[in-house]
């Protein structure tokens, strides 16, 4: 059965995708369909990531689970750029803590989860490999985001969440030991990496919602020094990557209007990609008489701005969703060493939610088109990139 299921997934995708894509395309069907424009309205478990302040304004205990898949039609130098790990289990839940007295119905918790094939996979490419760093190797990791949110007044929710993982740092010494053979001494640690998410959501009137969320930077360090003794010749290599699985520091402000069964939201976001040190692995190697190190990449990353418009309409038992998003490119046009590129992005999404057999079924999809971009390098060939990324998500949960 598992094999059939796996084969079905592979055949249906005909491409490779990857896990924890919530930061990239949205958490679950509603977020994907509405181009992630839910900072001012989301109040379920998915809001733990989108805006934990919204969790406090939810009213019921809810849970949902499903799957999100990505299909890559991205291209680098005319060839399709695969994305690692094509699917992730997506789950969300939110509940009120049954406190009494002044805190009654004021404290809620939410949980958003993306889980792929592995807890994490750190993939850092050679500098000579072409890639679109906005999409490549940023998201294949377990993401468990618990949120605690409080409602100090009836129209305001403030909350905090964390997104945590671990990096790897340490040393491997493979010297010849007392036994006359290599006896490795390994002294490595997996330090915790935590991304804080702080948010507030306000509903000053029945028609108006406002949201503001800050998401800290997330990056997994990989820092390993390997010393080996090859036939009496000492080799030492330091490998260093500060920003594997990178998500930038973000600030998103949003406003939403409600009119009858129709909701409309506009989100504006700033994403601090200029702090990104790139996806590459820095190597410093010492051999007898020779030191070699990775030259500076010269890649220039820029902060990006995003605008997203999301809409939903309740039509009987159905909820229709639509979204439109724009984001500027994270990279400049000229660099010296790498073949990384990124263009402006346009996203269109649509989705449908419906109660079926007492359960809430949500389906959402989006297409992100990347503007074609050519980079030139001071040494060696440049790169061309563009294409599209399709995200699809289906969840089943407690009824609306």
């Amino acid at each position, binding site marked *: 059965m598992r094999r059939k299921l796996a084969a079905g997934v592979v055949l249906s995708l005909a491409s490779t995708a990857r896990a924890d894509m919530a930061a990239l395309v949205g958490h679950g069907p509603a977020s994907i369909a509405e181009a992630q424009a839910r900072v001012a309205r989301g109040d379920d478990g998915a809001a733990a990531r989108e805006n934990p302040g919204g969790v406090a304004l939810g009213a019921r205990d809810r849970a949902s689970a499903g799957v999100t898949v990505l299909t890559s039609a991205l291209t680098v130098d005319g060839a399709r750029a695969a994305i690692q790990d094509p699917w992730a289990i997506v789950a969300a839940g939110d509940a009120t803590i049954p406190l009494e007295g002044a805190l009654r119905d004021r404290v809620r918790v939410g949980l958003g989860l993306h889980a792929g094939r592995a807890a994490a996979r750190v993939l850092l490419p050679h500098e000579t490999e072409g890639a679109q760093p906005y999409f490549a190797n940023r998201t294949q990791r377990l993401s468990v985001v618990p949120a605690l949110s409080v409602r100090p007044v009836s129209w305001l929710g403030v909350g905090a969440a964390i997104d945590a993982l671990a990096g790897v740092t340490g040393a*491997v010494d493979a010297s010849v030991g007392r036994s006359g053979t290599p006896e490795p001494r390994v002294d490595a640690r997996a330090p915790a990496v935590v991304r804080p998410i702080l948010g507030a959501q306000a509903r000053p009137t029945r028609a108006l919602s406002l949201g503001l969320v800050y998401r800290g930077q997330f990056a997994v360090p990989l820092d390993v020094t390997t010393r080996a003794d090859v036939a009496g010749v000492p080799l030492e290599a330091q490998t260093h990557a500060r920003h594997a699985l990178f998500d930038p520091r973000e600030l998103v402000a949003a406003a939403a209007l409600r009119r009858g069964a129709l909701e409309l939201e506009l989100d504006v976001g700033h994403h601090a990609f200029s702090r990104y040190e790139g996806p590459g692995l820095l190597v410093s190697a010492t051999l007898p008489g020779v030191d*070699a190190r990775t*030259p500076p990449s010269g890649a220039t990353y820029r902060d990006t701005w995003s605008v997203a418009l999301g809409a939903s309409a309740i039509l009987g038992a159905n909820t229709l969703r639509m979204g439109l998003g724009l984001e500027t490119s994270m990279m400049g046009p000229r660099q010296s060493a790498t073949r990384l590129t990124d263009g402006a992005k346009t996203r269109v999404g649509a989705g449908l939610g419906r109660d079926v057999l007492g359960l809430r079924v949500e389906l959402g999809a989006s297409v992100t088109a990347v503007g074609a971009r050519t980079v030139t390098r001071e040494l060696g060939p440049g790169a061309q990139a563009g294409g599209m990324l399709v995200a699809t998500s289906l969840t089943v949960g407690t009824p609306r």
Partner: protein
Amino acid sequence: MSRRAAWLSLACFALASRARASDDALFGRGARSGALAASDVADAEPTVAAFAGPTRAAAPGLRAQLGYRLAHTRLTLADAPARLADHRGVDLDLQLGRRAGVLDVGAAASMHLPDRGVASLAFRPRSEPVWLRWDAGRERASFDGVVAVAHRAWGVAVAVGASVTASSEGRGADLVLPQDERGPHADGAADVELRYRVAPILAASWTRERVALAARFRGATSIPVELPTTTTVRFTDNPLNGVTTVRLRGVVSYDPATVTVASRLRAGALSLFTALDYARWSAVPPLAASLALDVKLGLEPYVPSGVAPRPALRDTLTPRVGAAYDGTVASARVGAAFEPSATKGAATDVLDPSRLVLALGGGVRLPRAAGVSGALDAFGSWHRALERRVSTADATRPFAGARAAGDVWIVGASLRGELP
């Protein structure tokens, strides 16, 4: 496959797998369990059910606990201080149970996070002996989760769950050291993957007002590590030109599979606990990492190789006893245990002597606030490592004839909140 065969397969898989534990196996879980020397399996605090007494996860209510514990070692080897790092970290425990007809159903989750990070991935050279229980390389985060169902009238409960760890795999690092118009420089790529690993937790219990009996199985847990590094050297006129692959393989932070049978007798406010742990140390994997060197240079030198041996350990039986007085406002607890050394006489690769554990603790109930009833508990325990003479058939081995002994002091506290 029959259900019985399936369970048997699962159990065999767990025993054969390389898993390992966390500090929980040393200290018990939470201040109450620590004060009872981990003898509380038959009647554990529901908040820590995921580790201590899985069937207690069915207890109705919502509970959460935050704890902290610290173990300070004063062990000696060859009459010199062993200078081992302290073990310390935070515990987070959560449990939710509901009534459903004649049944109680619930779930519990426990997490331990060491101060130093999620895990230590430490190997010693194989000619250096290890403190199996106390080397800092054993510290790691632990995640345990169980679901339980109990029949109120019959007093019978069963639980199933998992202890989740990870393995470190992937293609590792690929380093290229070329020389071109930019001169000698370096380029690298990495592929490191942390995969989930799961060890089963199974438990059953029978509870009456005065008597409770329980049995618990925890699969072995560990973190397998595989770390290949391939270095390709292409420098002008260099005898090292070629490809060298250094492949490191090993298992860290091993905790053996355990089977525990336990009882609790109660008379009024007084409870008496007993437990007997069977730990399958004989399945321990090699404690040192193995290293394979694949050298393809212009000049191919002789490269010695060695494989880390499995230490010769034996299974252990650890008896534990505890007593608790639970008053309306305060509680007092005491516990003791004796854990025999898993080492055999001539072993020099593992140092751990037998241990005598004495524990003491207490707690107070906190005033109810916002509908939450709470409790604050604390404990301290003393682990006396009985003197062990490291003997061997080979006097050239390190520490042949040396003495291993010492003490370990552990303190901890936990704050618990409970909603009906």
